[in-house]
């Protein structure tokens, strides 16, 4: 057999170069640079100046502020994931039946997907305004939603949940259309009520897409930034200082790129562990029919 010439052997790798190049510049390099930076003290330009070893990590893990941002993030993620998925699922179930004007409703439920988090934050800012906001007017309350540490986190989380609900609605709608209509008809004849149909047929039928949506939502929720930046800037106090916002603050306000990088690495580890756990659990709870 004739041996392949060198260009022939290298050919296949050549096709990988463009993708690898993009990944290298925007993914691999920043990733390793972050790990590198997390081991150093930096100057204001973000250049590594003094090797600190695990110093940045030790500093973080002993600071109350870090644990606060961790706790805030966990609450935030819970509200966003549960809220966002519930709204999406509810919308998808409601729009799964044909009725007049369904397109208008479908568009309305999917719309948040097309709205930038910053512009949504601006709109919420106006809606939540203590004196002219529609929320206070409608509820006849007098609450300074964004400036009150009790409500600020919930407000940002609800906004994010709503933003995520659009894409969740789309995922769930696709999942629902995959469920065979005739099993609902059989269930009607079998005597199942709406609740039994939902829990025994719809939810198991949605479980594969539900799992995927859960993973994506958790990762997205951990990375929420724009709405915090616009609405609360991490405040009042540190009540909405999510990890990602804390990273931003550390790096670009306090010029402590080292600790910011260390926070990033910890965030990465948390998300990775969660994802691994979810894939482990998936095998038990997800029905692929």
């Amino acid at each position, binding site marked *: 057999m004739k041996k392949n010439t060198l260009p022939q052997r290298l050919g296949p790798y050549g096709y990988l170069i463009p993708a690898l190049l993009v990944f290298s510049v925007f993914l691999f390099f920043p990733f390793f640079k972050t790990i590198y930076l997390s081991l150093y003290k930096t100057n204001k330009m973000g250049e590594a100046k003094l090797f600190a070893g695990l110093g940045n990590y030790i500093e973080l893990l002993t600071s109350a502020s870090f644990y606060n941002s961790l706790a805030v993030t966990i609450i935030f993620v819970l509200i966003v994931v549960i809220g966002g998925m519930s709204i999406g699922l509810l919308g998808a179930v409601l729009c799964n039946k044909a009725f007049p004007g369904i397109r208008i409703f479908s568009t309305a439920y999917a719309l948040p997907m097309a709205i930038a988090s910053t512009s949504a934050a601006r709109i919420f800012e106006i809606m939540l305004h203590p004196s002219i906001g529609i929320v206070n007017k409608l509820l006849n309350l007098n609450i300074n939603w964004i400036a009150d540490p009790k409500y600020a986190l919930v407000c940002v989380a609800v906004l994010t949940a709503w933003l995520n609900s659009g894409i969740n609605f789309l995922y769930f709608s696709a999942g629902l259309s995959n469920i*065979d209509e*005739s*099993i609902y*008809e*059989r*269930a*009607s*004849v*079998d*005597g*199942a*009520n709406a609740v*039994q149909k939902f829990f*025994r*047929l719809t939810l*198991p*039928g949605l*479980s594969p897409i539900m799992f995927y949506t859960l993973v994506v939502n958790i990762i997205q929720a951990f990375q929420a930034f724009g709405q915090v930046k616009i609405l609360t800037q991490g405040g009042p106090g540190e009540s909405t200082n999510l990890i990602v916002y804390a990273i931003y603050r550390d790096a670009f306000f306090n010029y402590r790129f080292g600790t910011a990088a260390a926070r990033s690495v910890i965030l990465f580890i948390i998300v990775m562990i969660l994802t691994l756990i979810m894939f482990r659990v998936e095998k038990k709870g997800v*029905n692929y*029919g």
Partner: protein
Amino acid sequence: MAKVLLSEINKLYKNGFHAVKDFNMEIQDGEFIIFVGPSGCGKSTTLRMIAGLEDITSGELQIDGKRMNYADPKDRGLSMVFQNYALYPYMNVYENMAFSLRCAKMDRQEMEQRVHRAADMLQIEHLLKRKPGTLSGGQKQRVAIGSVLVREQGLFLMDEPLSNLDARLRTQMRSWLAKLHKQLGVTIIYVTHDQVEAMTLGSRIVVMKEGEIHQIASPGELYHNPVNQFVASFIGAPTMNFIPVEVVAEEGEIVLKCGNSGTDKLFISSALGRKLQTNGYMGKMIILGVRAEDLYIESVNEQKNCRLSMQVSVRENLGAEVLVHGEINGEPACARVKPGCMVKPKETVWMYPDMTKVKLFDCATEENILYEKSSDTKIQKGAGA
């Protein structure tokens, strides 16, 4: 056991499509009723209206004497097998069969008993822990029927339950279904477009077309006494041959002349001749309907020259019999002859119809001129409409 009464049932869709028109029928306890007809004839729609899966536009549905037009499907005392079986993909076979009982909050012990009894009867005990996705077509079919059995209702609805099975399995399941019906004595309403299923299973068959009932009768009655050309063509395989003939008087006798050759003619009884004469068919074209098995290669009638010439195009040897396809006076025709018959393609042969079994249809209305209203058919209001 259950009695079902459908009176003046109509289904009109919002887009104006009239799917079922004035459906009238009374179904007795323990009958095996078949709705048969081509696609889109309204048979499934009617079944779904009985099940409560479609609204009834007008008319009245009674099950066991109670008006059920607006009752929930679960309150109608019936169970249903769907065309694609509609097994719950996430539940195993046991849960599938027990689902309706669980919905009815049945006692656990009773539920287990019923499921095992049905599984035993259907020979699916060994499949109870399997998921539907791992079952073969025939097994799924049995599970679907098992899910219906456990409810122990008096009325079973079946929507083309055998159409997804291969030919051999279908034959097996067919005889098995007939046995099951005998054993349980329940009322079954069964939708199919397969006339063989209809003929072999049904105690009465409802032949439908474009939303209307054409005839309700027993299989034998439908076969031998079809109300019109559509019913005659739909029931029986191969399809009945239809040959246009002219009713003429020759030497004082009334004969049916086929084509212009003068040699292709059929002699009819004087009683039939009188009937055609009084009904004004003299000199007019009518359609002669003759089944493949009633065409003979040798004369079977008194008059030896009562015959039609057939140009043979294809000879199909089925082993026990031979189907000879060809044309009679330009119309496609098929004869079922004995295997020893040596007719070959491209030959022209004489075919001798058994004149006691032929049907005659009006050219314009397609109605059977020889149709006899029998007691069998009289039960229905809509029959023959």
